[in-house]
């Protein structure tokens, strides 16, 4: 929503929302953070919109209630969408059973939260069982969903055992290729690390946040910047589109660093990967003869030699391997502690049973 002033933009944003809510509730929107413009160099700074009494009971029958929170930023718009506009940057909509507060379903999008899920998504909660007869006929709105999304969902959350170990890579690659050419926007660009959604504003992130979203160490991020895989803005922030661009590369690096020794990367395949990355970023399509996808021309390297570039990638892989080793060590330590705890509990249990047995013998 646009406005001549920041306050007008916010007001133009709030009015339709309040009007829409008035169809089902008398609750009033509450706004935290005032009307001031959101600082460009601090993407974490956002305004909050919610209802003062939440969840708001809905309708005359008062069966359901709604929790609603939105984060928005007041930013400069272009031309007709300006000079000021409001951009929604996160939302949380959850329907609950009013009488029990049991959650039914939730539409959530929190790309900068602590959750690993950065794309807009839908949760079905236990309360959905209560409304199963309604759900059978309900058409729950979503964005369009790719086949890969459904396959990934089935494997990751519904116990489908994949037939091949590299399923994550395969799904990421096929979805990535598909998204390059599709005509419609999507709500779940998983292959591109779920950061960019068509029609939604792009966020600028600090380097720490960018590294976190990519799942890499900050030092690795700096190397990617040095390499040219990620370009920061003049004020040192990272536009989320840059993460989209780098996500495929990072995924491949991680995959290679996890691969068995006979397939672990060499200077040759690092250079090959670099070639693919450049094809991806400049032409929007990754060449892959195994999948008979169109081969795109490879741009000549301009600044650094292949050896230097390979060395940089090797450094990144080493970093990733170190991170994975550290995580594996932590996991192993936790497993050891859990095993010790189980052992201790078992011994206590046995001691307790022994005492009981002794007592039983004495009584007999």
């Amino acid at each position, binding site marked *: 929503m646009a406005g001549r002033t920041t306050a007008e933009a916010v*007001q133009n944003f*709030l*009015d339709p929302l*309040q009007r829409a809510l008035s169809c089902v509730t008398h609750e*009033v*929107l*509450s*706004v*935290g*953070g*005032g009307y001031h413009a959101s600082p460009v160099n601090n993407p974490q*700074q*956002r*305004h*909050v919109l*919610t209802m*003062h*009494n*939440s969840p708001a009971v809905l309708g005359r029958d008062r069966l359901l209630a709604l*929790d609603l*929170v939105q*984060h928005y930023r007041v930013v400069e718009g272009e031309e007709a969408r300006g000079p000021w506009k409001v951009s929604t940057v*996160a939302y*949380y909509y*959850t329907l609950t059973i009013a009488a029990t507060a049991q*959650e039914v379903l*939730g539409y*959530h999008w*929190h790309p900068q*939260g*602590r*959750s690993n*899920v950065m794309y807009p998504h839908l*949760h079905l*909660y236990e309360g959905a069982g209560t409304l199963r007869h309604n759900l059978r006929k309900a058409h729950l709105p979503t964005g369009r969903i790719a086949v890969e999304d459904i396959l990934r969902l089935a494997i990751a959350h519904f116990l489908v055992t994949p037939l091949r170990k590299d399923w994550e890579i395969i799904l990421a690659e096929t979805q990535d290729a598909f998204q390059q050419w599709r005509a419609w926007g999507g709500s779940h660009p998983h292959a591109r690390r779920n950061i960019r959604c068509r029609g939604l504003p792009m966020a600028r992130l600090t380097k720490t946040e960018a590294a976190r979203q990519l799942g890499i160490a900050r030092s690795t991020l700096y190397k990617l910047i040095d390499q040219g895989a990620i370009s920061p803005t003049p004020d040192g922030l990272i536009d989320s589109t840059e993460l989209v661009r780098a996500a495929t590369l990072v995924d491949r690096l991680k995959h290679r660093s996890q691969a068995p020794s006979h397939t672990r990367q060499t200077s040759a395949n690092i250079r090959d990967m670099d070639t693919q990355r450049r094809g991806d970023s400049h032409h929007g399509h990754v060449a892959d003869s195994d999948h008979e996808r169109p081969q795109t021309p490879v741009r000549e390297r301009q600044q650094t030699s292949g050896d230097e570039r390979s060395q940089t990638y090797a450094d990144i892989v080493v970093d990733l391997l170190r991170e994975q080793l550290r995580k594996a060590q932590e996991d192993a330590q936790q497993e050891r502690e859990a095993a010790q705890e189980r052992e201790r509990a078992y011994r206590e249990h046995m001691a307790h049973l022994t005492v009981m047995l002794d007592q039983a013998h004495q009584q007999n």
Partner: protein
Amino acid sequence: MATVPPVTTNGHIDLTQEEAYALLDREAQRRLGMSAHAFITAWESGQFDDDPDRPDVMYVAMLLPLAE
């Protein structure tokens, strides 16, 4: 029962900093049984990282900018 701030002539409630924090505190108490301060500390130290998508946790976390 919390006092509801007045609705502005524009039809919504503009929360002051104190009111915004009070709202966060109220919801943290009601949904998670902890103060806003305790929630912020726990959230930032990663105590909810095992399941940050819990609806009650996520809801309160979404209100965190009210404390800024």
